[in-house]
């Protein structure tokens, strides 16, 4: 048959078609992808077949995935976002103040700390780790010590409940600092009577509580993350 004769361009069409159809082995797929990186024309062929053959997928009957998948996606994105944004900026800030005056003001926390560069007092922060060892929240005390900002580092699904932040000074019982949000940074003004307790070695903890917060004034639900305040 004449349509089986292969020329240079129909070879590209064929191998791209085979790749898109999915009939190639793992090794052949890898080789094709490497070739595609060198030959942009192949990418065009692949897009052609993806577009043309892709409509076959419309024959598949949709299947609802379990809700856990979306929760996992949010968790991964939030954790990655925090790692690449917040912590890298924190580390960068630390090096910048040690090494030079070059400070890239890229995140909220960097902005909070910039004000403190000339002062001898290092800012206080706490990395509140969840039970799984992942960073659950990052808390930073304002430069004046009158408030703090809590940033979630990974997404949480708290369902119909709320998150409450606690301060536990050494030898003291937990004192509520108020409710925080699972999905966005929250700034909290510190009550005057608690300001002096906000010091290195004090612990910040987050518990899950019923709507409106703990009814007893002490944590009633599970503590999902905690960490000690330290000087940066």
């Amino acid at each position, binding site marked *: *048959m004449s*349509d*089986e004769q292969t020329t240079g361009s*129909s070879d590209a*069409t*064929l191998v791209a*078609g*085979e790749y*898109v*159809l*999915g*009939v*190639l*082995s*793992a090794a052949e*797929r890898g080789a094709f992808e490497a070739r595609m990186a060198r030959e942009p024309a192949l990418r065009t062929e692949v*897009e052609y077949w*993806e*577009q*043309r*053959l*892709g*409509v*076959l*997928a*419309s*024959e*598949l*009957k*949709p*299947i*609802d*995935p*379990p809700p*856990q*998948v*979306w929760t*996992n*996606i*949010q968790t*991964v*994105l939030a954790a990655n976002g925090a790692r690449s944004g917040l912590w890298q900026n924190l580390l960068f800030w630390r090096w910048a103040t040690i090494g030079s005056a070059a400070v890239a003001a890229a995140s909220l926390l960097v902005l909070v700390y910039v004000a403190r560069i000339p002062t001898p007092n290092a800012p206080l922060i706490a990395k509140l780790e969840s039970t799984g060892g992942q960073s659950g929240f990052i808390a930073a005390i304002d430069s004046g010590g009158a408030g703090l900002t809590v940033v979630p580092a990974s997404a949480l699904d708290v369902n119909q409940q709320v998150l409450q932040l606690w301060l536990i000074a050494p030898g003291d019982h937990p004192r509520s600092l108020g409710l925080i949000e699972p999905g966005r940074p929250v700034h909290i003004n510190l009550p005057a009577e608690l300001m002096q307790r906000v010091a290195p070695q004090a612990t910040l903890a987050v518990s899950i509580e019923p709507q409106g917060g703990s009814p007893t004034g002490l944590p009633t639900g599970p503590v999902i993350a905690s960490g000690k305040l330290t000087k940066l």
Partner: protein
Amino acid sequence: MNISVGSAVAIEQDAARKQLIAALVRVAGGDRGALRLLYRDTSAKLFAVCMRILHDEGEAEDVLQDVYITVWRRAGTFNPARASPITWLVAIARNRSIDRLRSGTGAKRMQAIDEASAVSDNAPSALAQLESSQEQQRLIDCLSELEPRHAVAVRSAFLEGVTYDELARRMNIPLGTMKSWIRRSLLRLKGCLER
């Protein structure tokens, strides 16, 4: 053929497509709310794509998660002038699923030769035909010009993501014959689609 129903469907499809494009553009800008919308509107379709290739819920869930994280990172490379949003998403879901299948973590399941279902796939319901876009109809027409067993092989390769080897085994023909079927079909399809 009821024209008014057909055109209503076409208008609806066009609106859905625009909505997906808008969501992808917002995702490219880092909008997580847009990702949620995109997930809501497309995850059941993409999950079906993953399930058909992997035949395992746990594996398909893992891959689906990976697909949307990839979408989050790569939405900026989506070009509405070159691809329809759903096809772009399906391509990512298929590639991830096929890579997973090839990596062997998905235990090799001996699928019974499923020509019966493949053949019934080959004849979409009247409703599916009504709902199908022009592009879909074009492909269906061109597939119907192939020899029926060749069309089954093409469709089955695409939906199941199986290798030449596996495809040949399933349809009980020599590997060389299968390669020649598929290659000939690809060239004929291209010729037909560009007619």
